[in-house]
């Protein structure tokens, strides 16, 4: 085995055997994300069950026939308790102490108003004892019941009016004379899907992708910095540098080993994340029912290849940057606090691009973000979905230039004695510590 492969093999062995890396980088995403997805699914199911089994109360101050029909309608649909009370205040006291989550109140005059062709008032009181989502949603369910009744009652009134006036026509058409539908044009093709549905898909992807990219780079940076700092702390790097092997071979070997583990970590992250999205959003089929590729915004094979290239150059640049900086530290702890600083320019574009497009930002902020190489990684992932390959190629170009610059700096550091003599600790940035003599 050549010196380079020897170092790569040793590096992979060391990283895989380190329980912190094996668990944190490879196993944790496989366990954590499906668990998170299950957690969300369980809580959503609990919410649905709680809404379905919600108890309503009804109190009417109106003894009229029309009010009675509404009461009967609500009673057939849910577990409804009729409150007997001397007035609204008394009814509210009784309702407050009950286990009902919503009170449908029909005030006096409801039947009278409807009979006279005026609007009949109905009021719903929500009983927010625990201030949770289920209580608020149950109040909405009670409201929806009244709305459904309202619609059908309106249709029957229209039908009666048409009959009385001996007119023809559909009560549904008279109620809603305009049928509104949406379609979208994407890349010149008309697609029968509303822009808002596509927007929600893009939003879900644009939140997910920057998070994934960010996490992957953070893993890689921490891993590489820890690995080099450990070599410095234990003086194994010092030993390695006196062996008959080129210093650039040592750097390349360490980088390659870290890239291999980072790729393994990314794959496990993606598997974990796909489990997370499929289980977490299974309660909301509208999110997943629209096929991305069907509407022309899925990733095509060419997109995957370019995206792979973007990820590769990003990883190499992040690792080279982490290694170049970590050689100046003298302990794992100081390397980790240093990588904490590196993570800042990564988090800022990720968060900004999660919530907006780069074009929407003020020009100055756009330029600042575009200087940060990792912004281009996130722009490229978004562009891959829309098939804008030019943006991806531009990103690969920019990140590659940055990577070459960082690798050049790393190679320089590795080929001089600075790798042995330079160092700073957490509290002494810039101050040169006297080397051991």
């Amino acid at each position, binding site marked *: *085995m050549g*010196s380079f492969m*020897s170092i790569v093999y*040793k590096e992979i*062995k*060391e990283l895989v*055997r*380190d329980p912190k890396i094996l668990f944190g980088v490879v196993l944790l995403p496989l366990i954590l994300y499906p668990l998170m997805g299950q957690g969300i699914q369980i809580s959503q199911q609990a919410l649905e069950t709680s809404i379905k089994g919600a108890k309503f109360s009804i109190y009417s101050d109106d003894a009229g026939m029309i009010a009675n029909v509404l009461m009967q309608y609500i009673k057939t649909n849910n577990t409804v308790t009729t409150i007997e009370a001397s007035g609204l205040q008394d009814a509210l006291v009784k309702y407050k102490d009950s286990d009902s989550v919503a009170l449908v109140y029909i005030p006096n005059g409801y039947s009278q108003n409807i009979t006279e062709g005026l609007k009949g008032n109905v009021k719903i009181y929500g009983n927010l004892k625990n201030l949770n989502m289920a209580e608020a949603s149950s109040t909405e369910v009670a409201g929806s019941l009244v709305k459904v009744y309202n619609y059908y009652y309106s249709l029957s009134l229209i039908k009666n009016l048409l009959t009385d006036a001996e007119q023809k026509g559909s009560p549904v058409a008279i109620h809603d004379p305009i049928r509104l539908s949406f379609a979208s044009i994407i890349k010149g093709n008309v697609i029968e899907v509303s822009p808002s549905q596509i927007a929600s898909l893009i939003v879900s992807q644009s939140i997910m992708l920057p998070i994934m990219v960010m996490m992957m780079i953070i893993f890689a940076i921490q891993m590489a910095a820890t690995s080099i700092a450990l070599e410095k*702390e*234990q*003086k*194994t790097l*010092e*030993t390695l*540098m*006196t*062996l*008959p*092997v080129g210093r650039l071979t040592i750097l390349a070997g360490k980088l390659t080993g870290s890239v291999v583990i980072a790729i393994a970590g990314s794959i496990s992250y993606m598997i974990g994340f796909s489990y997370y999205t499929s289980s977490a959003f299974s309660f909301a089929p509208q999110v997943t029912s629209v096929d991305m590729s069907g509407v022309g915004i899925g990733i095509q094979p060419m997109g995957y290849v370019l995206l792979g290239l973007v990820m590769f150059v990003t990883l190499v640049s992040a690792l080279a940057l982490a290694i170049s900086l970590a050689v100046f530290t003298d302990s794992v702890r100081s390397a980790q606090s240093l990588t904490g600083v590196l993570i800042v320019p990564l988090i800022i574009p990720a968060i900004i691009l999660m919530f907006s497009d780069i074009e929407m930002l003020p020009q100055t902020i756009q330029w600042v973000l575009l200087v940060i190489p990792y912004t281009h990684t996130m722009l490229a992932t978004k562009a891959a979905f829309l098939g804008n390959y030019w943006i991806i190629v531009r990103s690969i170009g920019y990140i590659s230039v940055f990577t070459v610059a960082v690798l050049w700096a790393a190679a320089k550091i590795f080929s001089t*004695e600075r790798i*042995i*003599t330079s160092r700073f600790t957490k509290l002494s940035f810039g101050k*040169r510590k*006297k*080397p*051991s*003599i």
Partner: protein
Amino acid sequence: MGLAVKIIDLWKSFGYFDALKGVNFEIEENEIFGLIGPNGAGKTTTLRILGTLISPSSGQVEVFGHDVVKDAGVVREILSYLPEDAGAYQYLSGEEYLMFMAGFYARDKTALEEMVQAGREISGLGDRLKDRVNDYSRGMKRRLLIARALMIKPKLTILDEPTSGLDVIQAYHVRGMIKDYAKRMGVTILVSSHNMLEVEYLCDRVALINEGVIIAEGTPTELKTRYNAVNLEQAFMEATHLG
């Protein structure tokens, strides 16, 4: 016998700080040479220059006739360097560590196996070589590292504070390993230490270094006679006018 190491007027500065101020000494082939002095005297800097880790600011440094700056690659082929307080890769077994390190020197599989076998014997760790390094005691780690340094049969072995941080028993074993190997193989070893009694036991010749300058050089007996001292510690104190 030729010269293993030749150092002439060696200076090394870190910014405004002069760590070495015109160091001169020579080491004969097959000699165990000790560089002794207190912490901060310039021992590690001298060894790092010899080990091709750092460059001299000025002066001439040669290992078996090869300049450590111009012929750094050749020098690395013939020397073995053990830094002070060095560790080994904690998630590799002792055996894997020896194989990894031998891989940089061995030309073929037979040579690799021979080197690893030598490492096994020198370390005396037996079956414990199959365990991971993070399960080793400090003394075991040091034995593994010294075995690593010696197994490749280097022409020059540089050991920086080989017994630093070890207890009396561990240090005794390590000194025994070095002395035994040197006697059997007839190799050149440069040892640095601030433990003067250790150097007196191990070395054929010693150089006393203080504040970046060699203040005396000779066999332990010569130095003790010159300074009318009972041991090297006392000789050092006399030489530095601190006694």
